[in-house]
C-alpha cells in the first residue's frame, strides 16, 4: 500500500477514535436514559416551587373568609385571582387588598362585546357614579342581598289594619311630625321587608317592635300594599337644618340605589324623596352607629360627618316624590 494512503488511514482512525472518546467523555450520564435528552433535566424542572398556592393554602389561616367566599357567587374566583400569588405570604408580608376595585372588577365585569351573556356585566360609566365597587358589593359575597320581594297584599284589608298606625304615620301615610317617616307611596317591597325585620327582631325600635310582632305575614303584605298605594306628598319641613345644595353633591354616592332625586329604581330600596328631615337624620345616624344593621348602608355612611348627614337629609326632604308615584299609580 502506498505510504500516503497508510497515513490517511491512520489519520482517519485516529480522529474517529478521538471523536468517539470525546463523545463518550462529554455526554452526561443521564442523556439517552429515556431518549435523546438529558433525563436529569426533568426532575430539575419538576423541582421548581409553585408560586400560586391555591385556596386551600389560604384557608388554613383565613378560614372565616374562606367559608364566606366559598358559599357565595365568587366561589369560582380563587383567592389568588384577585390578591395575587401567595408565595412568600405570610413570612415575607401581607398580600395586597386591591384598593382600586373599579380597575380590578371591571377586568371581568365591564360590558364588552365577546363576553358570554351569562357573565354579569355593567356599563361602567353609568353603574356607580364613580364609586368604588366595594362600597356596595362585598367582593367575597358580591350579590346584593336585598332582593325585591313581590308583594301581593290586599289594599282594603291593609287600610283596616293601618288604623293602628295612623296616630304616628298619619291617616294617609303622611306623618304629622318630623321624626316619624312618611309611608305614603313608599315601595311595597321595602315596606314589607322592614316590617318583617321588626317582627323577626332583626330590626329593633321601642315603638315599632311591639306593634309589628303580632302582625301575621298576610298583615304585612296588606299593610305594605296599602301604604304603597297612597299618594305621597312633599310636606315643607318645620325643622331648618342642613344645606340642600351641599347635600346634592353628596347624594351622588347614593344615586345608584336611591335614584338621583331619591326615587329608587329597585323596589327593594326605599324612596327618599320628600321624606322627613328628622327621620332621615336619625336613620343615617343609626346606620353609622350600628344600631340599624345593613352591611351596605354601614359601608356608605361610615365616612359621613354630622353636617354631611344634615345636608343629605335636607336635600332629600325637599325633592319631589311625585314623578314616580304617579307613574306607579296609573293602573
Amino acid at each position, binding site marked *: 500500500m502506498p505510504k*500516503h494512503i497508510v*497515513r490517511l488511514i*491512520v*489519520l482517519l482512525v*485516529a*480522529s474517529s*477514535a*478521538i471523536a468517539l*472518546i470525546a463523545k*463518550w*467523555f462529554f455526554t452526561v*450520564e443521564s*442523556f439517552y*436514559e*429515556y*431518549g*435523546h*435528552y*438529558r*433525563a436529569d*433535566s*426533568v*426532575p*430539575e*424542572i*419538576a*423541582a*421548581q*416551587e*409553585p*408560586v*400560586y398556592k*391555591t385556596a386551600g393554602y389560604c384557608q388554613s389561616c383565613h378560614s372565616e373568609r374562606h367559608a364566606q367566599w366559598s358559599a357565595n357567587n*365568587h366561589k*369560582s*374566583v*380563587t383567592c*389568588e*385571582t384577585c390578591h*395575587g*400569588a401567595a408565595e412568600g405570604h405570610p413570612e415575607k408580608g401581607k398580600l395586597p387588598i386591591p384598593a382600586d376595585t373599579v380597575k380590578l372588577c371591571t*377586568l*371581568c365585569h*365591564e*360590558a*364588552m*362585546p*365577546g*363576553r*358570554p351573556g351569562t*357573565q354579569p356585566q355593567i356599563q361602567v360609566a353609568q353603574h356607580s357614579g364613580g364609586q368604588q365597587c366595594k362600597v356596595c358589593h362585598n367582593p367575597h359575597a358580591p350579590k346584593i342581598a336585598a332582593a325585591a320581594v313581590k308583594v301581593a297584599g290586599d289594599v282594603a284589608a291593609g287600610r283596616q289594619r293601618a288604623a293602628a298606625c295612623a296616630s304616628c304615620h298619619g291617616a294617609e301615610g303622611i306623618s304629622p311630625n318630623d321624626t316619624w317617616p312618611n309611608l305614603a307611596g313608599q315601595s311595597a317591597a321595602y315596606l314589607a321587608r322592614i316590617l318583617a325585620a321588626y317582627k323577626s327582631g332583626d330590626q329593633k325600635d321601642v315603638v315599632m317592635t311591639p306593634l309589628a310582632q303580632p302582625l301575621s305575614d298576610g298583615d304585612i303584605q296588606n299593610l305594605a300594599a296599602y301604604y304603597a298605594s297612597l299618594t305621597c306628598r312633599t310636606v315643607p319641613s318645620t325643622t331648618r337644618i342642613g344645606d340642600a345644595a351641599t347635600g346634592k353633591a353628596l347624594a351622588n354616592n347614593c344615586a345608584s340605589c336611591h335614584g338621583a332625586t331619591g326615587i329608587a329604581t329597585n323596589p327593594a330600596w326605599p324612596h327618599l324623596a320628600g321624606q322627613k328631615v328628622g327621620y332621615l337624620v336619625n336613620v343615617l345616624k343609626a346606620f353609622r352607629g350600628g344600631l340599624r344593621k345593613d352591611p351596605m348602608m354601614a359601608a356608605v355612611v361610615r365616612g359621613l360627618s354630622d353636617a354631611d348627614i344634615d345636608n343629605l337629609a335636607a336635600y332629600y326632604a325637599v325633592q319631589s316624590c311625585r314623578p314616580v308615584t304617579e307613574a306607579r299609580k296609573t293602573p
Partner: protein
Amino acid sequence: MKREAIFSLLARRAFLRKIGRAATCAGAIVAAGALGVTKEVAAKSESKPSRASFPTKDYDWTQHQWAFGVDATKCIGCLRCVEACKRENDVPGDAHHFRTWVERYVYLEGDKRARIDSHHDPVNIEASGSEREYRFANRYQGAKVEKAFFVPKLCNQCTHPACVQVCPTGATYRTQDGVVLIDHKYCIGCQYCVQACPYGARFYRPKERVTDKCTWCYHRITKGLQPACVEVCPVGARIFGDRNDPQSPISLFIRNNRVQVLRADTGNAPNVFYVGIDKEVS
C-alpha cells in the same frame, strides 16, 4: 519540472509529515487520557438501576397522560391567566414575552374577516396603563359587532412535536406523561424550534439566551396541583387533567363536547382541545 513546482511539492510533503506527527502525538495523548478515564468509562458503561419513580419520588410519569381543554364559550378575556403564568414561571414582565395568551376575534357588520388582537396590542397596552398589566381595551364598545369571542392559547404539547424534531442539541423533548419541555442547560438559543412551531407557542429569552414555552406548569402538575392559568381562571374556561383517568375533568370535557384541535393538518397531533372556536382560529 520547474524549480518552483518542485519546491512547492517538497514544502507540501514536509507539511503533511508534520501533520502526521502531530496526529500521532495527539493520538498517543488521547490514548493515555483514555487509559486514565477507564474507570469513569467503566462506571458509565455499567447499566444503572432503573429509577423506581420518575421524575420525583412521589410522581411516576408512566401513570399519567396529561391533556388540556379550552372552552372558548366561557372565556371573558380577563387575562388573569396571562398574569398568573408570568408570575408562576418568571416570564419576562413586558407584554411581548408570554407562554400563554388570549386572542379576541371580532367580526363587525359587513366585515369578511375577523379583527384579531391580544394583550400586547398597543391599544390594549394603553388601556391597561402598563406593559406589566394586562387588559382588553373596550375598543369595540358602540361598534356594530356581529360576532365576538375570546380564545385562550398556549403550547399544544403535541404528540409529534415539530419543535423537538428540529432541536440540534436534544434540549427539547417530550416527556412520557405528554409534556414538551426545554432543558435550559442544553439549549443553545438557536431558535430553530421557535420557527418550527406551527402555533407560535415558543419565544426567545434574550437575557438567558434560551427559548422558552409553556410546560403546563410541570412543577405543579407533578405535585398534584393544576397549572397556574387553570387555577386562577374565574370562569372555568381552562380545563386540565389526566386522560388515563376517565373521570378527570379533561376526560369528561373531551367526552361530553365536540372538541377540535388547532391545525390538525400539520400532523403534530396537538393535545389542547377546543370548544366554541370559529373557522378563523388556528
